[in-house]
């Protein structure tokens, strides 16, 4: 047991999924030819002026409301000044003294219980472009397609206590952003990014230790690895009575370690001041009330409801509600009749496995909740075996097939008809008089022999449960 406690705060940057950029009408579409989604405004041409994108404000405000923040009815855009080739204006338009929203919180499940993580502030800003360095040519290129894409920065309180907790919090934020439909939430593509502030303090002490800032973590796994490494590094230092130096560290994914980002890049004085090109942003009470009313049911509430309404265990409810698409899919299927726990088991095992292995998007599969329910009904009614169901599931998910027609055509339907089964069983017993006699003489193991014969005769399509019951009855 360590004598130290880790204190972690996260700064999350989420790209908002608007059609156009934050301060101009250029498209935000990803993957276009370099410098094609640009105009005088986002390339910082002389005399160009920014005009706020109202949709981006709505998206940002909805996230703030989902985080239970207080929205500032008057917030101010400020310039954050620094030089970099992919920052065409020489400043980023951000918010500083009066951000969009403050004082929120979000609850996460950690170690089996709920924890409240404070949200200090949420503010809006525009993204920078991308620099591409070519070692081969000894040249650098700049692509300004991303310049001006709207971002929100979500700053947590120093409330996270471990790498696991930090990742859980991140996943919760991502889940809420995706529920709101305002962010793609892809860390690898960079539309959901995070920096972390980490410090250690002796257990039981209030005062915070010296912190370091971690950057360049491009996946949940990296966040976890980087934090684990940094917590251990600080603990080793403190245990040896060495000081922790306040600095910015870059995570190196190859070595799994952090390294110092010393030098000029770190020594920034951003010289924030209110952007004179943008009037203070006034949000009416009515607009805020309207957005509040439009908020969907969010993961924590949905999770509780799934436990209560469907009698699901916490684990199932958590997994099913992590993504809005999946939760909706579950509910639509259950509404058609199948027992919730059965649906949940199928989703958690077969469905999610297939989706992950084959990198599918559920909403784009032809396997609708209706088809899912009809498959479960085929199994429940004994028309096909559970085994057959599992076998044909990947096929049904990948292709546009109606389960009922499919099993009929492929001859997967089980023989469950009572008189039909009786007729087949009697035939089998007649054809095997020796085994019948031996069974009657006490060789009970031969039951499986008769079972095998029935399956052979029906090419495996007899309902095994019914065959078993019938056999025992006939052999009495």
């Amino acid at each position, binding site marked *: 047991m360590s004598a130290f406690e880790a204190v972690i705060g996260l700064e999350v940057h989420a790209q908002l999924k608007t059609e156009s950029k934050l301060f101009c009408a250029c498209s935000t579409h990803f993957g276009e030819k370099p410098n094609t989604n640009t105009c*005088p405004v986002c*390339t*910082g*041409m*002389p*005399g*160009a*002026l*920014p*005009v*706020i994108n109202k949709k981006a404000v709505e998206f940002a405000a909805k996230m703030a409301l989902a985080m239970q923040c207080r929205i500032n009815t008057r917030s101010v855009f400020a*310039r954050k*000044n620094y*030089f970099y*080739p992919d920052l*065409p*204006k*020489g*400043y980023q338009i951000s918010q500083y003294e009066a951000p969009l929203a403050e004082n929120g919180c979000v609850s996460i499940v950690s170690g089996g219980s709920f924890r409240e993580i404070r949200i200090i502030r949420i503010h809006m800003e525009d993204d920078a472009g991308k620099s591409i360095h070519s070692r081969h040519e000894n040249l650098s290129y*700049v692509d300004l397609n991303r310049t001006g894409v709207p971002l929100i920065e979500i700053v947590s309180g120093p409330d996270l206590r471990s790498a696991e907790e930090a990742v859980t919090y991140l996943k919760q934020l991502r889940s809420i952003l995706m529920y709101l439909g305002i962010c793609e939430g892809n860390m690898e593509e960079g539309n959901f990014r995070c920096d972390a502030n980490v410090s250690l303090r002796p257990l039981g002490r209030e005062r915070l230790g010296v912190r370091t800032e971690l950057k360049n973590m491009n996946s949940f796994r990296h966040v976890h690895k980087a934090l684990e490494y940094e917590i251990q590094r600080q603990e080793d230092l403190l245990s040896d009575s060495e000081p922790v130096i306040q600095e910015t560290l870059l995570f190196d994914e190859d070595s799994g370690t952090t390294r110092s980002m010393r030098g*000029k890049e770190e020594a920034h*004085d951003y*010289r*924030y*001041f209110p952007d*004179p*090109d*943008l*009037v203070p942003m006034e949000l009416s009470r009515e607009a805020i009330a309207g957005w509040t009313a439009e908020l969907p049911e969010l993961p924590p509430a949905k999770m509780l409801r799934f436990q209560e309404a469907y009698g699901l265990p916490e684990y199932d409810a958590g997994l099913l509600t992590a993504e809005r698409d999946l939760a909706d899919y579950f509910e639509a299927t259950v509404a058609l009749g199948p027992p919730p726990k059965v649906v949940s088991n199928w989703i958690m095992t077969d469905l999610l496995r297939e989706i992950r292995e084959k990198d599918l998007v559920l909403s784009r599969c032809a396997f609708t909740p209706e088809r899912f329910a009809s498959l479960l009904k085929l199994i429940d009614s004994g028309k096909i075996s559970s085994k057959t169901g599992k076998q044909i599931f990947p096929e049904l998910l990948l292709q546009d097939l109606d389960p009922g027609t499919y099993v009929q055509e492929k001859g997967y339907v089980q023989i469950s008809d009572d008189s039909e089964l009786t007729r087949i069983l009697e035939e089998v017993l007649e054809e095997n008089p020796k085994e019948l006699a031996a069974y009657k003489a006490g060789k009970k193991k031969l039951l499986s022999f008769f079972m095998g014969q029935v399956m052979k005769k029906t090419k495996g399509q007899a309902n095994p449960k019914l065959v078993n019951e019938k056999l025992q009855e006939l052999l009495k």
Partner: protein
Amino acid sequence: MSTLTADLNLTELRQGLLSRDISVLEAVEHASRRIQETEPLINALLHVNQEQALRQAEELDRQGPNPARTLWGIPVIIKDVLATKGLPTSCASKMLQDFIPFYDSEAVHRLKQAGAIILGKANMDEFAMGSSNENSAFGPSRNPWDLERVPGGSSGGPAASTAAGQTPFSLGTDTGGSIRQPAGFCGLVGLKPTYGRVSRFGLVAYGSSLDQIGPLTRTVEDAARVLRVIAGHDPKDSTSAPVEVPDYPARLAERPDLKGLTLGIPEEYWDAEGLSPEVNQGCTAALEAARGLGATTVPLSLPSSKYAIAAYYIIVMAEASSNLARYDGVRYGYRDREAKDLIEMYARSRSAGFGPEVQRRIILGTYVLSSGYYDAYYRKAAQVRRLIRDEYDQALRHCDVICAPVAPTSAFRLGEKTDDPLQMYLTDVFTNPLNLTGLPGLSLPCGLGEQTGMPIGIQLFAPAFAETRLLQIAWTLEQELPRLPRPSGLASR
């Protein structure tokens, strides 16, 4: 019947063009000739768009007059700080020497829509930073009234050009007096509209919260016509105001006299140390004329004015330091090709691309925004600004307009103040405060100085968006003020 002369004003030329007494081609050719005659003396222009202008003139002549287009066929000179599609826009800086925008500033777009012909781009102080036009990277412009004197700044080129009769009007910008002061120095009417009245889109930013575009003309009526064209809300500029644009020219004659009007006379301006006797005399005579038209004058005090110049320079330099950060040599503009790395490229490009005054203001502006100094400088200046604005608003409840001299002296000599930046900054002392308030102001020529023989200007301030009142009073007063002769420095031309 109108004939083309160098002192033909916009309204007269418009009549001549609409009646077809003058063809557009003749007007443009006349302006081009006038440019050829006067440019070697006054250096008012950085680029002449002659060929294109002549083609446009022929096209307009073919189409025939269109009275609905307020500026049909009128040639105009644009200060080089306003983006003009396909025409160089250098801001009189080496940094943007070869920069050609692919967009028009909104004000220029509106002039074109109204039928104006862009004949050239005017000289100015580099990035509009200066009060004498001596900070141009392409040589100073000179005052047509005395070629040894400055035309004022930063819109020195537009003022010199219009005063020399190159075109009937020009478009300038006013951040701390840059329209009113050169208009005053060159014997023109200069109008700085209310902040937000004219879109700033395409105006290369210097002090974004202070910059405003306006006309330099020979008459108040001409100023009213141009304002009518360029004013109005623009969704591309978030600070542009959605306030209706009155028909300024049509409403000018509503006040045949000034009876019942009160002019506020602020002691901070009229009793200022350094106010030259000839300016005092000229402006006092203008007040006398106003009283003759029935106006009453009331003394008033604007005590915070004395802090205005300090607050103004802190704010404008802070904004400038950020506004000019985009000139980094990466995407356009001057780039040093010898630099070994990124930081060196920035440093060398910006050291060579910007002139000394621009560098001084960037450095001072960077300083006042720096961590640890922000509260003492920028925040304090913003508070003072609020105070000044309140004081002017308050004063304008007790009078209809405030009257003050445009500058403490008439146009000074070239080189007279270039060694002392502070002395140069102080020449703006009467024009800076208005930009901090955002209110509209108009400078009106009121005669020639007894000592220097140079034009003297008086300025009027009105409440926000009360340009109609400003223009009406100025128009009425204009009839009673001495008409200026042709500029003496160009007497033989």
